């Protein structure tokens, strides 16, 4: 059954799957990092969780608008996360430690990159054929 299911899928499906992987990695990393630095934004977590659920659904039932919704969720998580950390970027650029935590810019950016990857993969999958 699974074999049949996968046999029906085109390359776009795998891009959707990769978006899911990126989002899960993002969620795990964010949950592992943000609470320890007192920067947890529940909206970021919610948008990732909702996006992941929709992403899974879209893999079972191919639906264009679901992918648009997945994109919205992942994009919101990515941009909200980066916007939340403006203080750390300011510190890093100014060479000071005041508004955020300059030492966390590496983590902030790498988590943000994971989220942006999920977003871009979701966008790209929209252009691609996902079922044969």
């Amino acid at each position: 059954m699974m074999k049949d299911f996968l046999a029906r899928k085109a390359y776009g499906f795998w891009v959707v799957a990769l978006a899911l992987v990126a989002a899960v990695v993002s969620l795990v990393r964010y949950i592992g990092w943000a609470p320890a630095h007192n920067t947890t934004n529940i909206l970021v977590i919610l948008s990732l969780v909702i996006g992941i659920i929709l992403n899974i659904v879209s893999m079972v039932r191919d639906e264009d608008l679901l992918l648009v919704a997945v994109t919205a969720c992942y994009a919101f998580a990515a941009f909200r996360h980066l916007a939340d950390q403006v203080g750390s970027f300011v510190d890093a650029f100014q060479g000071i430690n005041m508004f955020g935590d300059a030492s966390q810019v590496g983590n902030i950016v790498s988590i943000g990159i994971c989220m942006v990857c999920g977003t871009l993969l979701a966008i790209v999958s929209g252009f691609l054929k996902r079922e044969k």
Partner: protein
Amino acid sequence: MSKHSRLWTGLASVSTCCLVLSGVGLNCMMGYSGTVNQALGITTSKVVNEGDSSEDTTYFESDYGELNADNLQKLISDTYEEAVAEEAEGAVLLKNDNNALPLADTEKKITLLGHAVAQPLYKNASAGSKGYNSAEGIDLYTALKNQGFEINDTLYNAYKNSSTERGTGAFDFVTQTSSVHSMGEENISFYTDELKSSFADYSDVALIMFAREGGEGMELALEDDFEGISQLALHQEEKDLLNMVKESGVFKKVIVLINSGNPMELEWLDEYGVDACVWIGQPGQRGFEAVAKIIDGTVNPSGSLTDTYAANSLSAPATVNGSFNNQTWVNLDEVLAAIDDDDAGISYSTVQAEGIYVGYKYYETRYEDSILGQGNAASKAGSSFGKEWDYASEVTYPFGYGLSYTTFEKKLDSVSIDGDNITVNVTVKNTGDTAGKTSVQIYAQTPYGDYEKKNLVEKSAIQLLDFGKSDILQPGESQTLSITCDKYLLASYDYKNAKGYIMSEGDYYLTVGDNAHDALNNVLAAKGASQLVDQDGQTVAGNKANVYSWSEKLDTETYKVSRYTDETVTNQFDEADPNYWQDGTVTYLSRSDWEGTYPKAPTQITLNEEMIKLLSGNFYEKSSDALSVSDFTQGALTGKPLAAMIGLDYDDPAWDEYLNQFTIDELTGLLSDNFGTAEITTVGKPAVVAGDGPDGVGGTYNESRYGTGVQDTCFPTEIVLASTFNKDLMYNRGKLMANECMYLGMEEDWMPGVNIHRTPFGGRNFEYYSEDGTMNYLCAIPEVVAMEERGVHAGAKHIVGNDQENNREGIAVFFNEQGFREITLRGAEGAVAVAKGQALMHGFNRLGLVWCSENTALCNQVIEKEWGFTGQQETDAVAGAAGTYKWHLTSAVAAGVDQFCLDFAGDVGRAVAAQIKETDDGDLLALVRKSAHDYLYTVANSSIMNGYSVDSRIVSVTPWWQPLMTGLIVLFAALDALFIFMNLRSRKREIVEE
């Protein structure tokens, strides 16, 4: 699924992503709107005058007349001139063997060495102007070229092309670490034979520049990551460089420039054959012009050190507990478990066991006691070299030290005392053959007798009393300076017995000296001491003819009452002394027994239940008989604008009527500072912008209005200004910065920095004046007066005890009240109480266990009642502070805080408004009304009100980026809808076709 359908899906996803980006971006920009507007040079309100157009609404006039493009150019030109003058008079000639400097006209071929020549340190990382990074900045290379020197470009270009970089604290993405401890010097292998061969053609002078860099939040290391030694010590790569220069035998002269706001250890100058050395501090964007002029003799240096340069930077007793020797609580786990606040802000403490013995007050006092054979001064305790403590071994250059290309004779002509005024007349004569100026430093010694020993009233053997600066004197020319000193500065704070300031009984000595050590030798000579030495260990006689002596009776009354108000000045900070909680926790350094009291290890403290309660803060509670919100009138608009309050007394009843117009949300909104506050049109309150920086206010001129979009000037750092010992330059700095603020629409600037150089390692020592509280006091006054005279408020920072960057957020600073009042607090007293600065910023730290901004003793008792302060008290930055000790909002407001610094999104205001409304707390509303009153009083009486009259209307100006962002949101939303529609239509067609 057709190709068309996929296309519309993909495009819908793209537009959705852009829509989300625009939405989040706008939300973020709105949260930081003040910062965004300031960066873009946007003011969010404008005035519309509808009344009598002939009415004079210029309450504070620019020194340059009308604000226009031509006058701004004059101002900019003057700031550059001032910057060069400050560096010219602030740079300190430390060594000049055989008159190596100035260079002769024939000595024009220079090789610049040390990576810092290609990466000059204009200032450390901090707030304020970054003008040095602009086209208007001048580096050492350019300045020397402009002065006619020929420079070895082969080596200079190699430095420029090298990947070596001094650490700036910027985050390193590759190593995932901060580069704060990077020394940035080239390895000796960098100097290839090819590079060395270039020396021969530029061999008149080897000009070596070494830098040491800290910054905001970045303390210099007591033991760095590279060699495990003080960051202020000479490091191996620097030694290798010096050896290479010495062993090359190519250069006729070796000159070293010290490009640092922290005192490097400089005992090595002779060892490496250095002919001359100049401390240049951090020259800002134009100061290198002066450095080049000092080198060629166009300028004769006249700066004097405002720090003691110790042979061993770790030898100051303050380093035992300070800087990176902060401690965590012994029962840290218990403390963390008991307090909800973020751990970092409640974990660290430092004990100022050194008391008043900071900087020269330690080294010079110990010197006197070792000369006089008292107090076990010659013991090994605190000695850097494992032998008996010896002044000449410990000190390389004393406080106030500085050479010139000429020599001066200073004669104390007369001293007269009239009440608190001590008038000192000093005649200065240029006895050399080069024109030049010199500082006139007045010092004093007060008695250390039985009363003081019994009651632990410590006395510095010598203390700066005041200073002046001569004009440029031609060879043989004389000038008599009359300097009026303040006797109050000779009083000592007796925290044990009198619990107030006292004038000690006994003999007082006043002298003029070339530096603190020279002055002390004069006093010692007058006291008949022998075997005096200078900082090099050479025997000197001291000049007792330059000493004036008089006697005083014990006086515990004169200064018991504040000289600024009628408030009694007495102990307020007993709880900040660890011995208050448990006797014997700390032994304060005392000259009665140097050996027995020199701190041996950092003091560790265990917090009991009561102490933990204090540390946890949040003291405000609504009282059972609190007023109701309904007891106040809010939102009752009468049409009275802020302009109607201009010039009214703070206590004028009209203020109540004015404040009644505000809604609760508008009042609490004023608690949130975002480099200023937004306009409130209903009450005629304009948008307010604030600058931030002791060395440059930090702004960009409006090009469309003034024809130039350059940044304001980055002056030499504050320590360089202090080193000029020239109050005229200090006043002029304040005057020019105030005028810059007028052009930038700024109501205030957060300056000057009034903390002290408690240890040589302070990351922000560069933007504080000195190691001496009295020096800070004296320097702050002219700057602040000049600002306030022009209606631009000078907000001294960081009040108080914020003398280190390591763990600065929340560190518990313990002390005794003598050290606190005479050293720590003194600079702030000058800026606030004497100069009447109408704004001030608190420190991040705690006084004892209580955060400065929650500390009623500081904010209310000392600042408001003792100093008579009326104006704006602001916290240090609270951005992202929710969940930390800085989020004790109501407690801070109750203590006297008027605004919370950099609350970008206005969270403070909303939180306090919610508490007022939800708990019907009229008392809290009254406190917020006072905060608003304090702040608006300063705004009303500032130059920002120029152009406003009672007939003016404040009109909001929407920044251009807001409609732009909104337009993008609408555009992407429309595209999104369109693409989704097209997708659906395409799919419908497919179904129909199937």
